[in-house]
């Protein structure tokens, strides 16, 4: 080696350099714009196109929004008001229709005096969901329950709820908040009785019906606990189901009648064909979502099973349901079920629709969960076996929690799809908020020809709900991801 450079000889640094800020041209708003908007000719062209598109949309939509009319009796009156204020060629939104008809979009033909019932049920829905969504997190639970309380106070007052209902509801939520501070786990009991409570609130009738129906579940559980040490878990579960079915088929109604004649307690009954709007969509959606998840899990497990018959039946069911459009299944519910059931049985149409929507979602969920189960490493199954866990315990404690966690984005996306699909019940004559209610509104002479406003209103509500669900799923993914660094 001949030359020695200062940088090649042995070198020791005695003082460490402190960090310095980057040069001016490398930071700030100008740099950001240069990098993100104007870096290459293609980017410049795209930015210009984007700005043009934004301008075009704003130019046509903004005046329409700004000329909104909130107080009018009919569409033509709206147009007169807009023409008077903004000139003959201007267009303006006629939100007066929403102001007049919003309750139809929300409740359908539900009797207005009883609005407090669906309103309460909706508020309590979040109270029932709270322990599931935010399990164990006292702070979040309290916040959510507090919001429910505020919501109930406001809406029940506005809906002129009868005094005792108001008081009971408020008391219930306050009690739940108190319970959340000491034993949040116990809140799940409310989640369990919520379905029966809501059914009674929405459809009305004697208070003994839901209570006796819930007693059927108690019978199932009691028989299961009693028999499982004697004949094993699965047969005991089967026996429990048989006992519960017998209860519901034969013992339920006489007991209800007996209790009702002894102690008549109930609220006004509301028929199913009065349900409509978002009330209907949420009832179908929530019921479908809650019941499709367990059924979907069972189907996915069946499909993974080694037993040929179980696997074939599961695969057949899943492929059949996924292969046909939902509309055909809904038509089956409304037209064909009467052929398949014993002569003379008559099911409520909403119940039929809910059952089919649930099975539809369950088949899609089964595929999603199957993906999650397949993504789980083989070692997990083997470890569970090695620990001596039987099939159902291994599934419940080890396999399913992990598989479900992996599939969360796809599961929530199936739920969002399910909720959007509730609009299809319009084709079987139910009054969904999109086609059903809008048709009714547009059939009215006053509002004939209106189209942007109802669709924007309904679309916005759907957007809020579905977007909220997808944001929650992202939150859930983030929260659960921190376990796996």
């Amino acid at each position: 080696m001949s030359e020695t450079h200062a940088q090649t000889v042995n070198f020791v640094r005695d003082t460490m350099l402190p960090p310095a800020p980057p040069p001016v041209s490398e930071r700030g708003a100008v740099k950001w714009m240069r990098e993100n908007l104007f870096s290459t000719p293609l980017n410049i062209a795209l930015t210009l196109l984007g700005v043009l598109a934004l301008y075009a949309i704003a130019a046509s939509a903004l005046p329409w929004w700004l000329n909104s009319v909130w107080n009018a009796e009919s569409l033509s009156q709206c147009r007169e008001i807009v023409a008077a204020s903004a000139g003959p060629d201007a267009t303006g939104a006629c939100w007066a229709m929403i102001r007049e008809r919003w309750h139809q979009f929300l409740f359908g033909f539900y009797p207005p005096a009883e609005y407090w019932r669906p309103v309460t049920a909706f508020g309590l829905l979040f109270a029932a969901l709270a322990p599931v969504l935010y399990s164990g997190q006292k702070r979040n639970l309290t916040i959510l329950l507090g919001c429910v309380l505020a919501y109930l106070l406001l809406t029940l007052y506005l809906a002129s709820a009868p005094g005792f209902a108001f008081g009971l509801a408020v008391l219930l939520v306050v009690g739940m908040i108190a319970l959340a501070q000491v034993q949040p786990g116990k809140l799940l009991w409310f989640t369990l009785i919520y379905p029966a409570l809501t059914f009674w609130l929405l459809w009305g009738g004697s208070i003994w019906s839901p209570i006796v129906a819930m007693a059927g579940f108690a019978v199932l559980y009691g028989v299961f606990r009693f028999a499982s040490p004697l004949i094993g878990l699965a047969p005991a579960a089967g026996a429990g189901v048989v006992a519960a079915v017998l209860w519901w088929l034969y013992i339920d109604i006489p007991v209800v009648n007996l209790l009702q004649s002894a102690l008549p307690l109930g609220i006004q009954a509301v028929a199913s064909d009065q349900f409509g709007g978002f009330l209907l969509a949420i009832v179908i959606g929530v019921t479908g979502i809650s019941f499709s998840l367990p059924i979907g899990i069972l189907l996915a497990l069946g499909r993974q099973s080694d037993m040929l018959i179980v696997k074939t039946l599961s695969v057949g069911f899943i492929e059949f349901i996924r292969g046909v459009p939902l509309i055909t299944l809904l038509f089956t519910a409304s037209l064909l079920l009467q052929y398949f059931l014993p002569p003379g049985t008559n099911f409520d149409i909403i119940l039929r629709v809910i059952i089919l929507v649930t099975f539809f979602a369950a088949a899609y969920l089964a595929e999603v969960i199957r993906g999650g189960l397949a993504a789980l490493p083989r070692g997990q199954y083997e470890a569970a076996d090695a620990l001596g866990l039987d099939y159902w315990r291994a599934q419940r404690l080890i396999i399913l929690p992990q598989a479900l966690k992996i599939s969360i984005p796809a599961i929530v996306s199936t739920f969002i799809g399910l909720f959007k699909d509730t609009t299809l019940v319009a084709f079987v004559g139910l009054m969904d908020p999109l086609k059903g209610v809008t048709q009714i509104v547009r059939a009215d002479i006053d509002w004939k020809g209106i189209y942007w406003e109802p669709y924007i209103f309904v679309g916005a509500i759907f957007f809020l709900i579905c977007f909220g669900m997808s944001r929650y799923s992202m939150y859930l993914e983030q929260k659960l991801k921190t376990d796996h660094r």
Partner: protein
Amino acid sequence: MADAAKMQVSDEVAIQITGMNKWYGQFHVLRDINMTVQRGERIVICGPSGSGKSTLIRCINRLEEHQQGQIIVDGTELTNDLKNIDKVRSEVGMVFQHFNLFPHLTILENLTLAPIWVRKVPKREAEETAMYFLSKVKIPEQAHKYPGQLSGGQQQRVAIARSLCMKPRIMLFDEPTSALDPEMIKEVLDTMIQLAEEGMTMICVTHEMGFAQAVANRVIFMDQGQIVEQNEPREFFNNPKSDRTKLFLSQILGH
């Protein structure tokens, strides 16, 4: 110990870095780097994680951009000029920690891809070169398999052969053995020592101090984005001068 007579360092300057600074947003990741690499030199860069060692060598083939200072590779300065970048990248080969082989191509196709599309070499010639280098890394029989069918050590050797097919004059190694099982590290290190014996200019970021002692002309220690100490291996390991170097060496060599 490798054959010292074979590992001569020439006078020609291969890489010259002066006053180089790099920021990620507001974070000053490389501070005032000054470094000269002569042709035939083997340099090992070590340091704690987050010290900027990988970032430094990724700046040399423009996988990262520097904001201040100069990097001149083989007489070409690295700027935003695409032609300069292409020229530098065809002279500098890189081996990654996670191999980054192309899983949808066979081993042979992995090796011939760049010569065919960048150097416009006819396919037969490219395949001959590829088989030559595959034999050199001692796995010619794997030529028609897919990367997913090879072990980690074999994949990394294929990655080395893939870079060599472009006939680079400088090789950069970014922690080449960190993702390998212990029994496979030796086969990769042996390949790298063989390369060194043939006179390749090498910059290697690694924790394998045995390799440094066997082959390196110079060991550079980096911390907090700056070069803290550099020296010949013997002096560096036996007589570290800075406190930080001493602390780092005690952690690395202690286990």
